[in-house]
């Protein structure tokens, strides 16, 4: 009948606090909702015969402790294993014992005060002779007033969880506004701000009446918003459940998406990082888009003819675009400073290519001047170099106009992002047989291709772009000039 309820002595957390204080043999726990395995007592450091009593780390998440009461007073003799002080951690009140015999010479941190883990809270002298010396030491300790967290902090989480310069008593009810500006933040937002060390005064509230919401703090801390389940209540449970993780992440802000279970994080390659940077930069340019249907029957016929000679469709399109640009220099211009046009002397067509999970834009320089065959050859070289990662900088960053073609995938139209430093980019869709009615009302089937140009509206206006497209369309529809 070894039923567990008979063997209650080993697991019972009961202790009798009778006024006839019985000596304690075990680390007496006045109350403990958590069970800790490690020894809660921590009194260390031998320097002469005067020892400091440190704020112990009573739990893995504890960063500061509040002195509930000193069991012993200054001048009391202590023997090893005796309770000296009761400390309140984030989880429980615990009695802390001494490892050494001696005399409690001085109390550095008084009852009700708070000290970070590892800070000296009292001084232990070995003999009465050393009390004076110990007191002097204590005076210097408390003279330094703010017990700024000293290095020997044994808790692993000690460095991150706590807002550093604030050894305020644990239940600090101090609300928000102390400055002139009234900041309103919700209780959860305040908790998150403390946790992620976000200065709440620096956050702009987007909630009702301009209040700071938990989402605002998360945005400021650079973390992805917590997943929405029912409502904010879900968040309640996740954050405190894993404080060590959360705080570790807080130390490295801006890089913490609370990962969807099973997801993996792969850092950007250099190329991908460059793409990312460029794409973000592009957001500062006011762009607009104009689309144009181009009939490609003639171009297709030409392509069929020249293909055996090594001419690619890319080269054909680049050549056509370059020839159109020659007539519309403004589309080949760029706006460097927001105040002027920079007309480029060369027409350099950058062509976007996907390579090994990256994206690069090899440049066909002077595309308007080179003939189709040279252009095709040049293009082949560039692509090989790109695959081998041997492109020289001017071979991929000297473009004045970009061409992006997704037609080979069957895409009929798409919208390209204008790369920084250029005036326009052309997105080319697939050429497809389409029923068209001519001016006389006769139906026929023609191959039509949609091109869509994104341009910087600071320099290229709608009419410019439309005119350019019309030219481009004419060149494509009468492609003989391409071979000249």
């Amino acid at each position, binding site marked *: 009948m070894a*039923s*567990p*309820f008979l063997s*209650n002595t080993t*697991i*019972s*957390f*009961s*202790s*009798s*606090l*009778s*006024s*006839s204080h019985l000596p304690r043999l075990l680390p007496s726990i006045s*109350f*403990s*909702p958590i*069970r800790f395995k490690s020894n809660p007592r921590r009194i260390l450091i031998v320097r002469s015969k005067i020892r400091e009593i440190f704020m112990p780390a009573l739990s893995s998440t504890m960063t500061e402790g509040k002195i509930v009461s000193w069991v012993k007073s200054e001048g009391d003799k202590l023997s090893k294993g005796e309770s000296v002080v009761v400390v309140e951690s*984030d*989880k429980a*009140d615990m009695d802390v014992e001494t490892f050494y015999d001696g005399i409690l010479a001085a109390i550095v941190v008084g009852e009700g005060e708070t000290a970070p883990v590892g800070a000296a809270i009292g001084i232990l002298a070995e003999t009465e002779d050393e009390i004076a010396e110990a007191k002097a030491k204590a005076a210097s300790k408390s003279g330094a007033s703010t017990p700024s967290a000293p290095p020997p902090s044994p808790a692993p989480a000690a460095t991150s969880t706590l807002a550093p310069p604030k050894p305020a008593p644990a*239940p600090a*009810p101090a*609300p928000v*506004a102390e400055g002139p500006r*009234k900041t*309103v933040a*919700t*209780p*959860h937002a*305040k*908790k998150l701000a403390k946790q992620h060390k976000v200065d709440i005064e620096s956050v702009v509230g987007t*909630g*009702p*009446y301009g*209040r700071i919401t938990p989402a605002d703090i998360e945005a400021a801390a650079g973390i992805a918003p917590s997943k929405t*389940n*029912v*409502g*904010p*209540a*879900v*968040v*309640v*449970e*996740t954050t*405190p*459940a*894993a404080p060590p993780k959360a705080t570790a992440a807080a130390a490295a802000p801006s890089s913490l998406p609370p990962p969807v279970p099973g997801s993996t994080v792969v850092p950007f390659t250099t190329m991908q990082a460059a793409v990312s940077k460029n794409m973000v930069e592009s957001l500062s340019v006011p762009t607009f888009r104009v689309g144009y249907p181009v009939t490609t029957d003639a171009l297709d016929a030409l392509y069929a003819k020249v293909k055996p000679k090594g001419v690619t469709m890319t080269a054909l399109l680049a050549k056509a675009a370059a020839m159109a640009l020659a007539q519309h220099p403004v589309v080949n211009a760029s706006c460097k400073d927001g105040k002027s046009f920079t007309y480029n002397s060369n027409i350099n067509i950058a062509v976007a290519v996907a390579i090994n999970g990256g994206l690069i834009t090899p440049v066909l320089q002077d595309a308007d001047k080179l003939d189709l065959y040279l252009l095709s050859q040049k293009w082949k070289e560039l692509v090989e170099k790109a695959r081998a990662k041997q492109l020289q900088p001017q071979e991929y960053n000297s473009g004045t106009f970009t061409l992006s073609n997704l037609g080979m995938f069957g895409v009929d139209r798409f919208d390209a992002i204008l790369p920084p430093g250029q005036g326009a980019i052309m997105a080319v869709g697939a050429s497809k047989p389409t029923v068209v009615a001519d001016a006389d009302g006769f139906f026929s089937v023609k191959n039509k291709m949609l091109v869509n140009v994104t341009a910087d509206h600071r320099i290229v206006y709608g009419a410019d772009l439309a005119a350019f497209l019309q030219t481009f369309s004419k060149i494509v529809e009468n492609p003989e000039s391409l071979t000249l």
Partner: protein
Amino acid sequence: MHSALSSLSFSQATTVPRSNYAFDSHSPAFALSQPVNLRFCGLRREAFGFSSLTQSCSGRVRVSSRGHSKKISASAVGNGTPPKSFDYDLIIIGAGVGGHGAALHAVEKGLKTAIIEGDVVGGTCVNRGCVPSKALLAVSGRMRELQSEHHMKAFGLQVSAAGYDRQGVADHANNLASKIRSNLTNSMKALGVDILTGVGTIVGPQKVKYGKVGFPDNIVTAKDIIIATGSVPFVPKGIEVDGKTVITSDHALKLEFVPDWIAIVGSGYIGLEFSDVYTALGSEVTFIEALDQLMPGFDPEIGKLAQRVLINPRQIDYHTGVFATKITPARDGKPVIIELTDAKTKEPKDTLEVDAALIATGRAPFTNGLGLENINVVTQRGFVPVDERMRVIDANGKLVTHLYCIGDANGKMMLAHAASAQGISVVEQVTGRDHMLNHLSIPAACFTHPEISMVGMTEPQAREKAEKEGFEVSVAKTSFKANTKALAENEGEGLAKLIYRPDNGEILGVHIFGLHAADLIHEASNAIALGTRIQDIKFAVHAHPTLSEVLDELFKSAKVKAPSSSSPVSEPVAV
């Protein structure tokens, strides 16, 4: 089984007078009193075929007394009732839980009883208090569990998004209240209690008038009258309640909306329970407490632990030591604005802008219009002054004969089950048995997740009393962490605390914070009510594995110097 039960209760009732001792200093007369009847006879539902009255309110002490009580009532009728000069033997003004408990016991005692109710049967508890709030808390408990991924994972359970339908939750609370209300009404009707509809007013000694607005008043007479008019939410001045964004518990229980951010003024039972509901439904909560500490009514150690579990990890912040001196409802595109004033310096301290404010600053007696002036009774802050036997005291400090006041209206202990116990005590007195209720044996509970419960004194109260009277106080504690059942439920967070006298083993107070604490307290409250000492109760057996072993261990860990008496358990019991 029934015979065993009744004979057990009978033997307890008879053994008590033998051990003659005082419960506490507040009732010195108690020790002198004659044999005490400790059987609190509640509803005798078996006899009348009602089955679902169990939730009517928390913690009513019910020991069914069967055959022999009928004999008592028969004799009471024969001796006590004067000739038919009155319409009724007993009139109760107010059909809340207190009035209901008194009425049922009166009928059992053979009294011709009427109950006057101006509103709905059931009073605050059933319609606007304990009952509907339990429905909301049942929802919040489940939401909390389902939302706690960590908790579910520990069970190996997977739950995708938990959501709720506000109207469905509100309907649950409303349906529960109407069900309990009809149960109460039926139980009284079936017993032959006359339910008189209208507002009752005392027009003179033993005379009450009642009637609805627009109808002629009726005057009825009764040998004894019990005032049981209860209370209404107390709203401090400066606070404008609009019932929409600035609300009391009356409105909150209807759950007409769940605000994103709600301020709760007062961190007592009501405030705490609502914070549990609102945070589970996704609101953020700000407590405003006038005292320096949250949960001022609780044992400090329990309060501290409760704060660690119920406040700190939730979306709750708080302002202590401040009064909400002005609260303006949301209007004209502005949120609810709360002006805070420092409780000590009376200086304006801060202003809060929230979506809603719940006023949970306590309850005020509902005694206006009772006609107390007709019998020269002056209320004190609205409360009807009474002595320790619930007899009403007039302006000259004299007892008003045949007039009693029970429940919230007298302010002794504002709990539904206390009102009911007081009513039963009064009925005992008017049927010829002196009886005085030991208020220290009345348990109280707060139905948060986990629950908090208590009976008797807090540790500071006990220590203060011990200092005055020169006895020793000891404290024993057990953790739910050591309880098999609690661990099986993954609910090891909790503490039970026993405050006792080591010299004689008297239980001074028991405080529990943990899973089902509200149900666990009764072992302790019954022990206090029956005068059972620790050295005796520690031999009682508890089923394993149950949460009740938390108390078992608690009693066993107490260090009592007195030897155990011949315990009631060892006495032969007829089976």
